[in-house]
């Protein structure tokens, strides 16, 4: 993880795909990793994450992805034949800015989390939303 300076990282065997957008730090042989962060030592963790445009997508639980799909489908009133999957882009499903905001609020309610505006702006696909949810849920539990 990019939070190399003094972070407490525990390594367990959860498979994880690594998505990187502008991060200066590279990992050569990263097999698996999970993350538990001591929130107190990183008060600006979220804003730094967004500034570095750094996203880790751990394969979110299928039930999380499924729940996000349900919420999206309901908000956008999609016809039954429209498939909604992890890689579905909100824009391609016809979501406007009001829909996106409503979806985020729906997700917050469903998962009992709080999404910061800057994180919300980075959500482009269902998978992005599911991954963010899991990060926030885990952070809550940490």
């Amino acid at each position, binding site marked *: 993880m990019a939070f190399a300076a003094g972070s407490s990282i525990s390594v367990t065997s959860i498979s994880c795909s690594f998505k990187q957008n502008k991060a200066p730090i590279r990992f050569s042989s990263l097999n698996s990793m999970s993350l538990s962060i001591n929130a107190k030592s990183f008060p600006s963790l979220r804003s730094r994450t967004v500034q570095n445009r750094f996203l880790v997508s751990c394969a979110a639980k299928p039930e999380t992805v499924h729940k996000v799909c349900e919420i999206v489908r309901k908000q956008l009133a999609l016809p039954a034949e429209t498939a909604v999957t992890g890689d579905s882009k909100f824009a*391609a499903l*016809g979501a406007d800015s009001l829909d996106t905001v409503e979806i985020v*609020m729906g997700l917050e309610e469903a998962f009992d989390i709080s999404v910061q505006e800057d994180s919300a702006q980075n959500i482009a696909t269902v998978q992005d939303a599911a991954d963010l949810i899991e990060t926030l849920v885990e952070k809550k539990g940490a």
Partner: protein
Amino acid sequence: MLSYLCRATSSMKTHCFNQKFFHSSFPLAPVQLPSHQETHFWYILPNEVKNASLLNQYLELLSPHEKENVFRMRGEELKKGALLARALVRTTIARYQVNPQVSVTSLKFRKNIHGKPEVEWPHNDDGHQPLLHFNLSHTSSLIACGVTMNSPIGIDVEEKQRTIKNNILSFARRYFTHHEVELLAAISDPEVQRQEFIKLWTLKEAYVKALGRGFSGAPFKTFTLRYKAAAKGSFHLSGNSNSEASEITVDSFENASDFTSKWQFAIFELAGSHYAAICRGIPAEAEGSVPMKLTVWKTIPFVEDKRVSGTDAVVRIGGLFD
């Protein structure tokens, strides 16, 4: 198709165009550029466009990149909506015949730093760029394009019947400013509250699109919209914005980063089914509050154009405009 042609010849000036004549329709009726005070507003109703060959004609207007984007949309209705949006933008701008080198198919677009689309005109010898501005908005049942000369424009349309899934006041507390929340909280009828929420949303959306920054670039909490009775300059906090003489103003908590520090708003009911909001910049040196001159056309490009401003298809809700 014959009936369309008959209607066309009686209502259209014939003109030479630098574009292909399509086999089953007539060319776009040319329109004079809007004056600096005018705003032109064109809209199309997707439900009225069902003819497959017409849709194919529209498709042929698009650039390869635009076609890709259309096909990326999931589902037939969304594809059609995306297609009509691009066809509307291209045909609308082409009507003004700004540059003889540019036709409906050769128009190029680019995005500004925040992602707002604008026309990329070919460079003239004198380097002078035309000052035509546009902005697009759509819902599943109506797609609109606003056009101005020499001032930034943002528009937003929403279905009047759009339901809000979340609690409106929670939503407002999170995204709107204190003044706006108060305005909504003062409304006891939930249906009226929902309508006022949507109107406020469209106005705010029109503003951030006019700024060129969009929803993510200009958070809604950083500016307040107010309805003012233009005559007396007093505030109405009841949420009743049906005053004919009301002016809508914006107070921004951030510094205006643009050359225009004044903004004009208009909000109206469109086609009985939608709220439409327009925001345009006016030069800082412009005197007083000059009403916006608004002209609205309903169009099916290559088939029919109908000027509807002054009819009951356009019903003023707020803002100073003719």
